[in-house]
């Protein structure tokens, strides 16, 4: 078990993160203080949740580029509902956000499943369509902090056992996704469909439906993140989370989830997201010229992917064997 872990990608990532933290703390010692690490985790929560959703989609050999637009649209809708009916309790809004997100994901899923359009094309299309709808429903206007109700803004900040709800939501998502992927037939089907779609058909798995479900799940979690994002930054406008989908995909790729489908673990996705989150939070405090910041985060991604590609080649892609061990 231990030997296997040491050779795994997760171990490599943990090592990379530790080296990264070491480098950062040599320039800004306060960074690795437990309080700061907790705030980095909180800051990365949304990225973690989206990366988990993206992971199940990528596992099925698809990709969802519309997650950030989905997040922005749901966030705007939830914001507008809050402005119109400030009395509506947050759990109801969360439910609305989740259902709307799942619905938007289902549109992607249906187009991939029934119309058989390549996922990258479908989600590239819905990416702009969803952004456009935000413009239509909001008239391009912002929803600002003073228009949102106090409870709407307080929910992700509410502290439970010393940590904000936002962080706990990420923890809960990690557990739920772990159970989904490892313990349910659907979760195993994600791996089978991505690993070898033809073989999956022979084992009685409905490939199209499995992909559809992956999109619905990714959509639902994007919807929840939509509410969390808008309430955390206390502002909703057309461009929120613009380009964030690429960061989500990057987190998955860094985490060792194969773009070719079928390979990847929950731990990998979470560590990949954390890796990016740490870089994002560290760059402002380590006093590096802003002109270098983009280059640095870009190189980190390329290095991670290069390492990924190398280890992937050695391992091959024996999916069913992995499933047996897990």
């Amino acid at each position, binding site marked *: 078990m231990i030997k296997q872990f040491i050779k795994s990608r997760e171990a490599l990532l943990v090592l990379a993160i530790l080296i990264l933290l070491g480098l950062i703390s040599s320039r800004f010692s306060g960074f690795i203080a437990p309080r700061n690490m907790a*705030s980095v985790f909180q*800051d990365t929560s949304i990225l973690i949740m989206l990366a988990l959703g993206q992971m199940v989609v990528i596992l099925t050999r698809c990709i969802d580029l519309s997650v950030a637009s989905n997040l922005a649209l749901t966030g705007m809708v939830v914001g507008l509902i809050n402005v119109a009916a400030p009395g509506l309790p947050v759990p109801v809004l969360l439910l609305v956000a989740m259902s709307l997100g799942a619905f938007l994901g289902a549109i992607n899923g249906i187009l991939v499943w029934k119309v058989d359009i390549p996922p990258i094309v479908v989600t590239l299309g819905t990416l702009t369509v969803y952004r456009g709808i935000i413009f239509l429903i909001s008239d391009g206007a912002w929803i600002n*902090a003073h228009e949102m109700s106090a409870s709407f803004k307080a929910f992700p900040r509410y502290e439970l056992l010393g940590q904000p709800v936002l962080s706990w939501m990420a923890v809960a998502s990690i557990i739920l996704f772990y159970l989904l992927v490892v313990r349910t037939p659907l979760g195993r089907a994600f791996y089978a469909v991505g690993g070898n779609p033809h073989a999956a058909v022979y084992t009685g798995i409905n490939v199209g439906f499995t992909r559809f479900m992956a999109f619905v799940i990714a959509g639902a979690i994007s919807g929840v993140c939509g509410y969390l994002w808008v309430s955390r930054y206390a*502002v909703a406008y057309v461009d929120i989370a613009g380009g964030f989908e690429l960061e989500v995909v990057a987190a998955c790729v860094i985490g060792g989830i194969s773009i070719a489908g079928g390979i990847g673990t929950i731990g990998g996705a979470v560590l990949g997201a954390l890796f990016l989150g740490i870089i994002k939070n560290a*760059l402002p405090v380590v*006093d590096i010229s802003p002109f270098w910041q983009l280059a640095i985060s870009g190189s980190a991604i390329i290095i991670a992917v290069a390492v990924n590609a190398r280890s992937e080649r050695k391992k091959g892609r024996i999916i069913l064997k992995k499933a047996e061990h897990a």
Partner: protein
Amino acid sequence: MRILKKLLTTAAVAATLMISPAQAQETKRIALVVKALGIGFFEAAAKGAEEAAEELGDVEIIYTGPTDTTAEGQIEVINSLIAQNVDAIAVSANDTDALVPTLKKAMDRGITVISWDSGVAKEGRQMHLNPSSNPLIGNMIIKLAADNLPDGGDVAVLSATTTSTNQNTWIEEMNKVMGNYPGINVVATVYGDDKADKSYTEAQGLMKSYPDLKAIIAPTSVGIVAAAQAVTDAGKAGEINVTGLGLPSEMAGHVDSGASKSFAIWNPIDLGYSATMIAYNLATDKASAEAGAEIPMGRMGSVTLDENTEGAMADPFVYDASNVADFKDIF
């Protein structure tokens, strides 16, 4: 080919015939072209333009722009305005140079062309109206921070992107007048790329790196809101003053929470009003756009053009707890 030409000519003649009745009414049609539709700032400018139109009587305002902030979108919009043969175009440009050929074409057809807010290169317009002058803004943003720090202290700047011309010019002008504010130290300049999440993280970084920070100056409307939220979330509202340039509607909540004591912005209503007044005066030949010329702007007084035929409207307007509530529903 010949048939196509004929068809086009016929279409052009038909279009001219259809337009001519509108011209006969002799109302001046002034088009206000903005960076993108649906931005609060420009909606407010349109209100000012309507106010000017009402005052002048014989003016029709066409408020238009692309749906996203691209130069390509604006070129399409301007081309259609040229086809409609409007009397004047007042544009806030998405690109300094890209619009020049199209606007030249408009001027060749006798259309009055001015730029306002965000300018066009000199050859593409008759004059440019700056909302304020860069030195006035640079001085204002540091003054806002200094006014609340009688004993001096550390302040940091949260800008937009590293390449934003506006912000870089203002910060440069601010640095020129730093000598007038002894005791105020600018300890860092960081860039939030005009994204809410990046600006928020950068503001958090500033608070971590400089525990004695007294103020954050954000000369960008996205950055100032994000910084105010970050300061509130860190429990430092009242300790760290977030100031700079922002819109009252977006900042009202943060002024109430104490995260921001005051901030400034030029008044977009006045800006739209002034641009319309200038466009009208130029289109009706009541004034001419040349270096040193003085062009009247109704209730806003008049603007004097410099050698680049540019002029500044007024000082940025300061908003604080006493007046933000009055303006938050306007823009």
